């Protein structure tokens, strides 16, 4: 009898069909990072359509960029990706220096690598802690913030601020590192090394965490490239691409002489997986777990980079270069440079017209394109998976809404 029903094309058979509902998740939802509003079309528990609504955090940063000189725009770059402000400053500073063809001394170069990688560690720690929150466990969040506080203390000593630093400016940095800072940074790295294993025990190899993330929100290589994803989201899908190695010569020049491998799974193996727990078997390349694991690898990678930059920075004797003058005239022309921010490729574009005020300023946000993937990933998943997927993309609304 049952095959009669199956053969009859007119009858579609599936579970009890409740009525479709339009459900609002956000903008004040506790799990979306910042003010993101997701409109979900759900049928019972199954999500059939996701539409992110953004713009709640828009502050016209780029329009203001057309009224202030490049150095005065540095504080606005802090507030784009407020979790990795140093990397944003670095991106803007490099773009302006590219426009003005103004080189930077060795000491400033190594200082910039040191500070940028330290800020990447802090940003990934927040990403890891908040992701634990999305999946329901509260403790990793506090462990992550405990370590991040120590990094913020170091930054506070260096530039006086804990979140929006405006430390790296066009032509170097506002001030040199205080004496004894390098030893403190070294001490932090030494005590941070063993703690990474705690995070793996808490989350990466936790059976329930693996169950909630393995095979959820699988982003294929082609879709990742098509949607312009970048950073850990791209590398989580197995695409071997890192701006610090594949970027423009001006940016990769900062990193020459540094030994580092891109944290991506090549032919089934991660570069440094000997010190890391093995990849669980039910994990699929490109799912939430891999994006999380890539971020954890990058934290260790950044620690190596910081150690190397400390040695090189200490070796340079000459004083730090003077930053650009406020009223410096900008040459006519434009410049666009992409850097590897913790969330992905952060591009800055400037058009000079001979005066000291740029004619046009534009920031290309990595989280913006990463967020565009949510509809593809959340289709057909359960409501409980939506925060898991959005959390694994690690988006920051400041950067998206600018």
């Amino acid at each position, binding site marked *: 009898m049952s095959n009669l029903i199956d053969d009859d094309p007119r009858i579609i058979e599936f579970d009890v069909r409740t009525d479709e509902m339009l459900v609002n998740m956000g903008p004040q939802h506790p799990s979306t990072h910042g003010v993101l509003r997701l409109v979900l079309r759900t049928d019972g528990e199954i999500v059939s359509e996701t539409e992110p609504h953004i713009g709640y955090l828009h502050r016209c940063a780029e329009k203001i960029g057309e009224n202030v000189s490049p150095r005065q725009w540095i504080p606005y770059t802090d507030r784009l990706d407020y979790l990795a402000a140093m990397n944003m400053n670095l991106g803007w500073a490099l773009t302006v220096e590219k426009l003005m063809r103004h080189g930077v001394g060795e000491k400033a170069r190594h200082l910039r690598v040191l500070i940028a990688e330290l800020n990447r560690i802090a940003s990934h720690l927040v990403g890891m802690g908040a992701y634990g929150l*999305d999946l*329901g466990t509260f403790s990793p969040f506090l462990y992550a913030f405990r370590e991040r506080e120590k990094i913020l203390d170091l930054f506070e000593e260096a530039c006086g601020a804990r979140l929006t630093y405006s430390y790296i400016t066009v032509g170097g940095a506002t001030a040199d590192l205080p004496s004894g800072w390098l030893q403190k940074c070294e001490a932090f790295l030494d005590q941070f090394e063993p703690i990474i294993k705690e995070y793996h025990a808490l989350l990466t190899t936790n059976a329930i965490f693996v169950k909630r993330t393995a095979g959820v929100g699988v982003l294929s290589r082609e879709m990742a490239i098509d949607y312009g994803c970048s950073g850990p989201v791209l590398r989580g899908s197995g695409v071997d691409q890192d701006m610090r190695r594949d970027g423009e010569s001006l940016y990769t020049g900062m990193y020459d002489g540094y030994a580092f491998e891109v944290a991506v799974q090549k032919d089934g193996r991660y570069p440094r997986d000997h010190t890391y727990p093995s990849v669980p078997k039910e994990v699929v390349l490109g799912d939430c777990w891999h994006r999380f694991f890539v971020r954890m690898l990058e934290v260790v990678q950044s620690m190596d980079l910081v150690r190397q930059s400390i040695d090189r920075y200490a070796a340079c004797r000459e004083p730090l270069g003077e930053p650009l003058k406020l009223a410096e005239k900008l040459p006519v022309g434009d410049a666009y440079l992409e850097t590897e921010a913790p969330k992905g490729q952060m591009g800055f574009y400037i058009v000079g017209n001979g005066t000291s005020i740029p004619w046009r300023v534009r920031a290309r946000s990595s989280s913006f394109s990463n967020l565009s993937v949510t509809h593809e990933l959340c289709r057909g998943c359960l409501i409980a998976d939506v925060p898991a997927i959005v959390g694994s993309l690690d988006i920051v609304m400041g950067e998206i809404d600018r």
Partner: protein
Amino acid sequence: MADFLIGLGLPGWLAWSIAALVAAILLLNVIAGGALVFIWAERKIAARIQDRLGPTRTGGRFGWLQSLADGIKLLAKEDLMPEGADGLLFRLAPYVSFCASFCAFIALPFAFDVVGQRLNVGVFFVVAVLGLEVFGVILAGYASASKWSLFGAMREAAQVVSYEVPLGMCVVVPVMLAGTMDLVTIAEKQSGWMSNWYLFHDPFTFVIFWIYVTCAVASVNRAPFDLAEAESELVAGFHTEYSGLRWSFFFMAEYGSMFLVSALAAVLFLGGWNGPVPVAQLVGLSEGTGDSAAYFVRLLGLANLIGKATFGVLLMMWVRWTLPRLRIDQVMTTCLKYCTPIAAVMFAGAMFWQLFLPGGLLPGWSRPAGEIREGWLEGPGGLPATSAPAVVRSAGVAAAEPSDSSGLAKRSPR
């Protein structure tokens, strides 16, 4: 109690009603006091797990007045009701779920004779009433007129109803071992050394205990199974719209049933009021007599049971702050694909163990397992041999020795 009041010259019925009310108030205070302590304990344990201090300012160094502060805050908070809410159901829901968890405390034996009401169907009654808590949740979810709370309510209802199946199976094993559903008799049978506890009776019961713990955590909606108030997805599940006193009733119901479920585990598997070492028997005191020594022994028994139940609750808190949350379908698969089959196999195993190895492997298990099944059948092996006409206690005789299987109570080694 009632005789004491009759002695004071109160009319009979007034004495009895006062005695009943005093017993009810005492039980209510078990939940209220428990909730007070557990709120404070949860904050402290969560703090310790997260490498911080927890409340330290309210009431002295350890912040033990924190629960009182919470209580006052909840009392002072305004009881909001959403505009589209269904008035009657919205107000009724917290009381329904609180009554359900309070109701089950009646049959729980705290010490030898310290029990609200000695029910012959004690275990069955407790499990039945625990199932009623789901009504409060469904009503709350439906009445607060918001999609999110409805999601939370439907999820929780599905979870609690489906976890009752394995919970029921796990509860039946100790009932089978003791031969009766009367909680007091089950606890009495586990008196003596720790080896007499049903936990160590046979390997199957040991596994059943851990399945019971899982299902209990799930049916009380705690830790990895707390779908209903999954902050990350459903804001706060079914009690999103509640605030103030109504919300605290849901809170009390949760802590009440947490304590109840772990106390039930203590009675069924961990020997109820019998401590690991039978101090009272070694010293020669007995619970049966009415003198002050018996009072002290019962107090010791009370401490034992509350200690075990508190250990269970602390275990739930510890699990809550370390593990992430499971998804609704994973919760269902763990129930249907793991808990229920394993419980069924272990139940069958315990049954055959009871049949073929009544004496058990442990030498300490002296009692002949073919106990009198509540005094109904006195066949040779105790098991109702179908061939030999079973000598039956006629209904009349039973009337004289009413409900408790006193045959057992008096003979147990005291």
